[in-house]
């Protein structure tokens, strides 16, 4: 089976998976009673005047059989209608689209750091097994893995912005009320191209806004990196240890190759395969991490919106939280698809076997 066939087969699996995901998300909706769901449409007592809550239930068809409601809902989702989010006071789909760049701005820079540094430390730890370097790296990795994201973020804020004063406290993105934010808000010469302040600043010919935005991205990116890097270090270490015990490594050493050549050329490349497979988990970790990070650093991205939709009191923002869940699933399934294709490309045994 060629690579193309493998990918096509894998793509076909996406359809039932996404269908299952949609059923699950809809099942969460159905856990609310029809009346609870009708109540989501009532913002104050005036809305009810002259009407009965049964009318609302009937209008929106909350008491129809589940499968009818599901097909209805699925049809709307496929047309891009995910409902209206109370938290962002906007349609769910447009909320996701406007907030996505902010989240990407935080997540994207952290990925190369995590992968490169993680692989480097993992290899270092494995090649120096049971030495002091190994112990320190492992402790650092376990430490990073044990840190509560929210606590780390708060500590970083406390240390770097309050005590040292390097980065402006409190907010990421562009802080409200700052010069840069006012400039963007007033508009005039500002035009939004991508929604990322760092890139838009350059495109608008306002490099000072880019610098300002970058400054606010340092701490959130650092938080995400520290929390997620442990995963890569651990997998890389154990996979490298396994590879180093293989016969072809011993052969390579026996024929007198330099140690660095054996490690860099023979061992590391083969040890990378398991790392590719956990990258899917990395994406999931970052998506979850972003909920906390954005909440603490006040970045107006997807994560903060989801946290507010789920957490803050008053009416529950059901369309919001379900929209976010659906979005994360799409991202996650896509990421896993790419990972699988990569895996098949790296390891011929998978596609041929």
């Amino acid at each position, binding site marked *: 089976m060629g690579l193309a066939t493998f990918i096509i087969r894998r793509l076909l699996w996406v359809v039932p*998976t996404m269908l299952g995901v949609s059923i699950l998300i809809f099942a969460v909706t159905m*856990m609310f009673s029809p009346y609870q769901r009708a109540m989501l449409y009532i913002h104050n007592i005036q809305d009810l005047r002259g009407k009965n809550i049964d009318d609302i239930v009937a209008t929106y068809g909350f008491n129809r059989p589940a499968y009818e409601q599901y097909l209805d809902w699925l049809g709307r989702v496929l047309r891009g209608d995910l409902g209206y989010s109370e938290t962002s006071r906007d349609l769910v789909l447009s909320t996701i689209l406007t907030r996505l760049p902010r989240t990407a701005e935080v997540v994207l820079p952290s990925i190369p750091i995590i992968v490169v540094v993680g692989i480097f430390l993992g290899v270092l730890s494995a090649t120096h097994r049971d030495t002091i370097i190994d112990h320190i790296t492992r402790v650092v990795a*376990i430490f990073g893995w044990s840190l509560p994201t929210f606590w780390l973020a708060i500590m970083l804020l406390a240390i770097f912005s309050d005590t040292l004063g390097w980065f402006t406290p409190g907010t990421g993105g562009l802080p409200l009320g700052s010069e840069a934010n006012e400039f963007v808000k007033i508009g005039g010469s500002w035009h939004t191209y991508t929604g990322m302040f760092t890139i838009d600043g350059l495109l608008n010919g306002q490099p000072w806004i880019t610098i300002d935005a970058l400054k606010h991205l340092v701490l959130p990116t650092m938080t995400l990196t520290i929390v997620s890097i442990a995963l890569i270090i651990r997998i890389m270490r154990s996979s490298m240890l396994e590879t180093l015990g293989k016969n072809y490594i011993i052969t390579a050493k026996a024929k007198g190759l330099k140690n660095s050549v054996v490690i860099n050329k023979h061992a590391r490349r083969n040890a990378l395969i398991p790392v590719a497979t956990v990258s899917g988990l990395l994406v999931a970790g970052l998506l979850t991490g972003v909920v906390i990070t954005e909440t603490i650093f006040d970045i107006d991205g997807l994560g903060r919106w*989801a946290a507010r939709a789920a957490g803050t009191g008053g009416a529950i923002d059901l369309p919001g939280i379900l929209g976010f869940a659906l979005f994360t699933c799409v991202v996650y399934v896509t990421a896993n698809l790419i990972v699988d294709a990569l895996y098949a490309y790296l390891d011929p045994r998978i596609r041929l076997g």
Partner: protein
Amino acid sequence: MKINIRYRIKEFKRGMAPHISEAKFMLRRIKKSPLSIAGISIIIFFAIIAVLAPVIAPPVNRNPYEIWLDGYASAPRPPGSPIIKNTKAIKLGYTTHILGTTPGQYDIYYGIVWGTITAFRVGILVVGGALIIGCAIGILAAYYGGVIDELMMRFTDIIFAFPGLVLAMALVLALPTTWKIDMFFYVFSAIGFIGFVILGFKILKLSSGQSLGFGFLGLIIFMLIDMYVLKSPSYWIMPLQLAKLDKALIALTIVGWPGYTRLIRGEVLRIKQEDYIEAAKAVGCSDFRIMYKHILPNSIYPILISASLDIGAIVLTAAALSFLGIGAETGYADWGQMISFARNYVDITMTNWYAFFIPGFFILLFVLGWNLLGDAFRDILDPMLRRK
């Protein structure tokens, strides 16, 4: 009779010998690794705190998990501040706020001590629940293979496709606070299940695995009868109050099991080919007995290690839920929530460091303990690495 008992003991000892030597080997490796000793000491330390909680922090409120308040002032107070308002606490022997108070005047020391129990409960219940569900599904899927395997694993993939925290967030919202359990429905369905199992086993002479499957068929039939023919929902309703933390626990369990299913399925697929399974089949062991007595004990170790690593991760996720305000109830002894109280007092000045540093430090230490332990175990039990 006497000889018989002695013989039994001898047999038992001979049977246990490999396990004992395995345990001795593990102990030796653990003694050699400073990291695992650190992990075990941390967990023992927390276990002692949890056991002694009523002694070292006597409950002030009727519900011991409610942290006692000392007034309602919003600003936190530093360690060693005197107790002003809560006379009941003074009567019980508290002299000062040993670790200070959170914003809102919850006593940090009390919250930390009773939060330990919460942390253990969250970690062990969620991981235990997920382990049971995951192993049951994984073993069934791998053992029977074919369509059952395909269906169960696709279902697992779907749950696995959700990032944990996000699905847990949605589920916590959706789970009802009062769960109206219609006992008639459950008893009726259980009768259907048991009846069909007995019917299949005794009368139709099916194997035990098949009659279990037959029992599930009965379960579904009786459920449908109850839902559409008898329409019972008001015979015998038992309301079950779910605290906010319980909802979080259920949500995390629902999210957590697919990882174990995948792991154990791989193990079982490997073990299924072994000769001793063939032998067990040949002497006529029932499917259930093979799964329970032969497959489960031989495949569970890697899953247990993964589970011990997960306890830390689950405690972190639960703390994150609490931090977002959808975990424990306000005032419940929970470390994550105590940090969320302190959140607004970070920016102004570092003088309030204790309010967020102390609870966070305890979460870190607790999770670190489990992770160190799990990491050490993995190195010890990994057959590729162990005897080097």
